[in-house]
């Protein structure tokens, strides 16, 4: 309990003003965040549980769910390995051009999702730079799964590295140097010293990376070609159902994605509380 001195009183607002400000903030959040979230679940269950279950167990929906899981299962580990490698090089060594490298890693955050898809079409599409060569060799990247994976890896590129770099910067390299001086090999040092030190930060980055990988729409939409049962991810399936006026179906699949978002938020919050991880402004 803080002592109520006259100066504390005059350096905060009256209780009435506080309640008014809190109410205004909560009303804004209720309107802009809570209401859309409630709308997803309520529209999905509008006609009861049976149509909801039909929609999510429909073969096209199941194949979209499968594809989304496959995309995440491939692109998240790729970015995890990159994030570990990049943060090791950046935080354990000093070399010229480090700031430039950091800026370049962040680059995908400032590119529109649609442009992120477009660049892969320009590179690998039928009219693209490598298009003729690819089609001569019977390879298909655009309007196929490899294109979706590439676009997803691009979009989620900075997530793991961004979480790990500040964390490893803060931890320094004393632990690693101690391990090495005691005779551990480089890999042993990484597995037994570095990895345990950063595991929760790594998990945090992977969590955010995964949420974005499963939910990405714009970039994936440009490269996918929307072939039902083949190149349709969950967010794309939501769009197709919505445009066909199958609103219950669209919201049913959307509610699965919303549930994923809620699980992500809960895990993220738990990690922040328990391990004092920060919550950055740029996701």
């Amino acid at each position, binding site marked *: 309990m803080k002592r109520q001195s006259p*100066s504390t009183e*005059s*350096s*905060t607002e009256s209780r009435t003003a*506080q309640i008014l*400000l*809190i109410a*205004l*903030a909560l009303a804004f959040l209720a309107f*802009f*965040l809570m*209401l*859309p979230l409630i*709308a997803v679940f309520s529209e999905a269950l509008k006609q009861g549980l049976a149509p909801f279950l039909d929609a999510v167990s429909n073969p096209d929906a199941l194949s979209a769910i499968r594809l989304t899981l496959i995309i995440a299962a491939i692109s998240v580990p790729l970015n995890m390995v*990159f994030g570990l*490698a990049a943060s090791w090089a*950046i935080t*354990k060594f000093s*070399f010229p051009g480090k700031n430039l*490298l950091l800026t*370049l*890693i962040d*680059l995908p955050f*400032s*590119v*529109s*999702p*649609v*442009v992120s898809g*477009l*660049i892969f*079409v320009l590179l690998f*599409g039928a*009219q693209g730079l490598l298009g003729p060569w690819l089609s001569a060799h019977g390879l298909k990247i655009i309007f196929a799964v490899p294109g979706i994976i*590439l676009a997803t890896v*691009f979009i989620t590129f900075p997530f793991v590295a961004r979480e790990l770099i500040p964390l490893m910067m803060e931890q320094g*390299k004393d632990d690693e*140097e101690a391990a090495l001086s005691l005779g551990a090999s*480089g890999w042993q040092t990484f597995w037994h010293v570095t990895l345990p030190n950063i595991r929760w930060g790594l998990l945090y980055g992977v969590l*955010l990376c995964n949420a974005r990988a*499963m*939910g990405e*729409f*714009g970039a994936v*939409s*440009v490269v996918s070609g929307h072939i039902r049962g083949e190149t349709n991810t*969950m*967010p794309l399936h939501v*769009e197709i159902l919505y445009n066909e006026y199958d609103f219950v179906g*669209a919201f049913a699949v*959307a509610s699965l*994605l*919303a549930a994923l*978002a809620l699980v992500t*938020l809960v895990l*993220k*919050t738990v990690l922040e509380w328990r391990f004092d991880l920060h919550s950055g*402004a*740029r*996701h």
Partner: protein
Amino acid sequence: MPSMTTRKARWRAPSVLPGFGLTFGFSLAWLSLIVLIPLSTLFLKSAGMGWQAFVDVGFSERALTAYRLSFGTAIAAAFVNAVFGLLVAWVLVRYEFPGKRVISALVDLPFALPTAVAGIALTALYAPSGWVGQYLDPLGIKVAFTPIGITVALVFIGLPFVVRSVEPVLADLGKDVEEAAATLGASRAQTFARVIFPAILPALFTGFALAFARGVGEYGSVIFISGNMPGRTEIAPLLIVTQLEQYNYNGATAIAMVMMLVSFAVLFTLNALQSIRRRRLGA
């Protein structure tokens, strides 16, 4: 850090830890493959089409209308977020109220919720027959399928950028300066305007710019609520997709290039302003 490196460099090889070649090489190769080479195709393609062709498609009447809409709605939404994001950050940092931790976690919902899900949920709310729309429609206020609807979607998407930028600065701002101001006879409003606001203004500006940059490129949450009428509610990212669907790769590239240059200019200005401020503060 610099003093430590020079000390070490004197009596030990600068690379005590192993793995620099491997991790740096892998990071650079992966960065080039996934980000730099694909992005450079945009520049190559733009350069290849010639200046006149670039201007013809990149600054056509339709493209200019789309830029005006995209930049206009993104600025409007960033302003709304600057005001309410500051309010939310203030309430979360300064006041105690039940459910605060849940509310704080909920602020990140737009980072976690797939954009397409947000898009159909907002449309369900603000369509003329929707939950909110049915009350606005008799008043003659149309939200869905107008620029207001686009702004609403961008407010949703951009809110966490402002809150998460302002929150840490506000939390670090010691109470003592406010108490000093109060002791010197400043009213609460004067303290806010003269002491608190100038201190958080840079963070607020960062949040504003991040929300703006995200809003300009945003696609998934906007296309459902915007109605996509060319010349009226057609945002620039949608115009890129439309050009791609018509196999007009030059058109898509030119518009993407213009948008990307503007985003980079915004972020560059932001970084420049921050480093000027840092230099002025002598930190």
